[in-house]
């Protein structure tokens, strides 16, 4: 026996041994799984390609289960069960359960993954391109493939959106957008998809695009209503940029090309002048070169907000300091203000506000809170509380209705006050005679020289440099409160009316004025709310001698002693003119006092609560 032959024999024995071990361990599985199947199913696909495929490690029966007897199967008496890819690909199977292709057309895995037996892992494969190729087998969407994202993918851009980036791959949703089914869900869904990439700074930078567009959009009415969770009535990204033909505005095929804008906006808005089209769908307030008017408005409103609040907050803090220290001193010395100790005639109630003005104030409060509670959720649409409050109103649409209703109430009230003011200046029978002296007189709410002196006097008093000034009927801060409403009505009311029906407004002003109107409306609202909830509330609730509330505006009367103490000049005038007798009233009834306290304190608590929400949102944003 040659060495070679001996080795061969040894090798044979070893081989046989190995074979025996293999047979014992694996044969029942491997042979029946692969060898037996391929004995009949002997196409190259199963013999060659499958062995190179990613599933080569799995035997035939790991997918084609249910064959118990090869002979029965060979005779056609036993068929394998349908392949369940989900037994391994569980996550995908779960996603796929909601896939439109499955739900509506009963697509199975292999209907898209047709070469399932030869499928290989190919790291160099352009997946985005492959997806386009697969989808366009049926969906020959020329809109997409010849423009925008599709064109970029075909040119090799790996950031541009392929079909699945927007529609999902295994979880293609049941949005049949062409049928306008589920329009709200589809709009919300696809807008989120756009935002995901277009807010990605790194990706946008790579592609020379702005990453701020999403934030700017979210700052507009469209974006805010959408963010609040009510996408149905407002434009999402795709409503203006279309779904597939997404191109820069310089391209004549683009929906946002100037020539196409009228039709584009016209899909939702009707009956507008062509000036409407200059509205900016996502402007940058801080871009001085591109949006000069918006930039100036932004600066002005910011300065007005900060300036007004800073001025009055300082005023308030100084005031509070003085009163609190004074209160403390009197407490230590056992002193009590004369109005508290009033006896006899001092207890007599005198009228300050007639029933008419008290009702008007209550209506103003209701209207103001309605406006704040319906407007601020939109201003801070991203906040958790915004969605909660809007839900309480019954949705964004209802909130909008209430907002407009309250605005109408306020406008009517304001018109009435303007009429009253004119009547005050030009009373019946007197005509123009003496209007200037009435305007600057003590009963007028118009500022005069005395207010300046009073202001100086207050400052001196704050710093312990003198007695507080003697006021007449109206203090300078009351006059400010009154006139601020006029300015507020001009700013908020004017912008609000423009925004009420922007299509009609376009016959008056161009679309870009709507951007300014929106900015003014929003910022002036913030100023008004913070002014009322901090400064006005301080004046009427938190000043130590009025805490927890001054019910005067609701009951309309106060003690004669209080009149003497707070408005000595008015008291002197009333006595001199002999009018004091006509001002005397009954003590307010218990029900009126109870209602006043409830309404006043309720307003205070609600206002404080809203202040916390607003400040929270300001800090977060």
């Amino acid at each position, binding site marked *: 026996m040659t060495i070679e032959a001996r080795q061969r024999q040894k090798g044979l024995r070893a081989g046989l041994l190995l074979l025996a071990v293999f047979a014992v361990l694996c044969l029942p599985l491997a042979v029946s799984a692969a060898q037996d199947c391929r004995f009949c199913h002997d196409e190259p696909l199963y013999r060659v390609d499958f062995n190179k495929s990613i599933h080569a490690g799995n035997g035939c029966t790991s997918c084609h289960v249910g064959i118990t007897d090869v002979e029965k199967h060979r005779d056609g008496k036993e068929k394998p069960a349908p392949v369940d890819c989900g037994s391994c690909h569980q996550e995908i199977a779960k996603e796929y359960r909601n896939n439109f292709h*499955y739900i509506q*057309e*009963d697509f199975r895995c292999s209907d898209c993954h047709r070469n399932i037996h030869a499928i290989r892992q190919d790291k160099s494969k352009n997946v985005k391109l492959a997806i386009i190729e697969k989808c366009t087998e049926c969906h020959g969407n020329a809109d997409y493939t010849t423009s925008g994202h599709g064109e970029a993918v075909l040119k090799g851009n790996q950031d541009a959106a392929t079909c699945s980036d927007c529609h999902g791959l295994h979880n293609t949703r049941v949005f049949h957008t062409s049928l306008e089914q589920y329009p709200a869900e589809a709009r919300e869904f696809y807008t989120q998809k756009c935002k995901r990439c277009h807010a990605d700074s790194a990706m946008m930078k790579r592609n020379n695009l702005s990453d701020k567009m999403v934030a700017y959009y979210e700052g507009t009415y469209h974006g805010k209503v959408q963010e609040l969770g009510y996408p149905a009535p407002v434009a999402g990204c795709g409503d203006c940029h279309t779904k597939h033909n997404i191109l820069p505005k310089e391209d004549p095929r683009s929906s946002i090309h100037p020539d196409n804008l009228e039709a584009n906006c016209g899909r939702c808005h009707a009956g507008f002048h062509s000036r409407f089209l200059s509205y900016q769908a996502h402007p940058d307030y801080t871009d001085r070169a591109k949006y000069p008017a918006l930039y100036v408005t932004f600066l002005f409103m910011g300065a007005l907000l900060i300036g007004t609040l800073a001025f009055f907050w300082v005023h308030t803090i100084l005031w509070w300091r003085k009163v609190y220290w004074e209160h403390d001193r009197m407490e230590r010395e056992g002193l009590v203000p004369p109005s508290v100790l009033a006896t006899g005639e001092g207890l007599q109630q005198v009228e300050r506000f007639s029933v008419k003005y008290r009702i008007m104030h209550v209506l103003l409060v209701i209207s103001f809170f309605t406006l704040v509670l319906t407007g601020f959720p939109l201003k801070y649409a991203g906040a958790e509380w915004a969605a909660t409050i809007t839900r309480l109103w019954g949705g964004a649409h209802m909130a909008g209705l209430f907002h407009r209703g309250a605005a109408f109430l306020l406008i009517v009230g304001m018109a009435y006050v303007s009429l009253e003011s004119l009547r005050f200046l030009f009373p019946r029978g007197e005509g123009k005679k003496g209007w200037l002296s009435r305007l600057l007189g003590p009963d007028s709410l118009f500022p005069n020289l005395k207010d300046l002196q009073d202001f100086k006097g207050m400052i001196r008093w704050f710093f312990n440099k003198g007695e507080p000034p003697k006021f007449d009927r109206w203090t300078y801060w009351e006059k400010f409160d009154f006139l601020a409403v006029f300015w507020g009505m001009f700013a908020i009311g004017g912008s609000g009316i423009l925004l009420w029906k922007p299509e009609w407004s376009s016959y008056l002003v161009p679309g870009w004025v709507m951007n300014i109107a929106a900015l003014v409306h929003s910022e002036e609202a913030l100023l008004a709310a913070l002014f009322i909830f901090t400064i006005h509330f301080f004046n009427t609730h938190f000043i130590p001698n009025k805490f927890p509330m001054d019910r005067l505006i609701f009951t309309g009367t106060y003690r004669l002693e209080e009149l003497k103490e707070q408005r000595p000049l008015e008291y002197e005038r009333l006595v001199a003119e002999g009018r004091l007798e006509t001002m005397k009233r009954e003590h307010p009834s218990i029900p009126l006092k109870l209602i006043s306290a409830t309404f006043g304190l309720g307003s205070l608590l609600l206002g404080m609560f809203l202040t916390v929400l607003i400040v929270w949102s300001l800090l977060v944003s």
Partner: protein
Amino acid sequence: MTLMSRKNLIGLIVPAALILITALAACSKPQEPAPPWKVIDASTLRAMMASDKELAVFNTMSELECRDHRIPGTRCLACEDVENNPSILPPDKGRDIVFYCESAGCYRSCRAAGAAVKAGYRQVYVLQGGMPAWKQSGYTMESIERIPRGSIQSIRAPALKQMLAERKDLLLVDVRSEYLYKEGHIEGAVNIPMHRLSSSYAEIPLDRTLVLVDDRGFRTFLAGSYLEMKGYRVMRLFGGMQDWQAMQAAK
């Protein structure tokens, strides 16, 4: 939101709500009368089928669609056939019978159920949400004779309109019911309702490229795959007549 502020909010809403209440009352829709059949959800149907192996559950799609995929253990009975001849339903009118179809709106199953109720069946059910609801619940389907899915190009209404003007080799095949076809169809379209397609497809000439048209674009894909399997060149109208009519109306 705290209870306190909610109370306040409600207190403020109430007066304002009074103003709007009349307007709202005018907007609310009147209630539709309840249908004469019972509506059941997918899990209820599954439980009913498990407890009663003989339960008569009917797929009201065309035979072609039903044989392609259906809820396991159910029978194929196109709603047109039930309407035309309710006597094909099981004879015992006191037994439970269930109808389902392929769309969430259940239009076809409701029509079949209506016919069954009219024929005197007392325990008629309709699967709420149809097969989509069944599938979304994660329950399996069965195939008797699966149609290989083809690459059926879908074309949108404006493209089809242009194509019809340019090409002479197209044949529009409207697979909707005869009734809907008579109500209005694309000029030149022939009508082969879906439920007759498997028996009548041979009438369609082989030398034309077919453009399949249905109601909403949901059914032409399978019909197209079927016809492609039979040797036809097929395209389909995306969005069906609904899209076509929307395009016509927009002009």
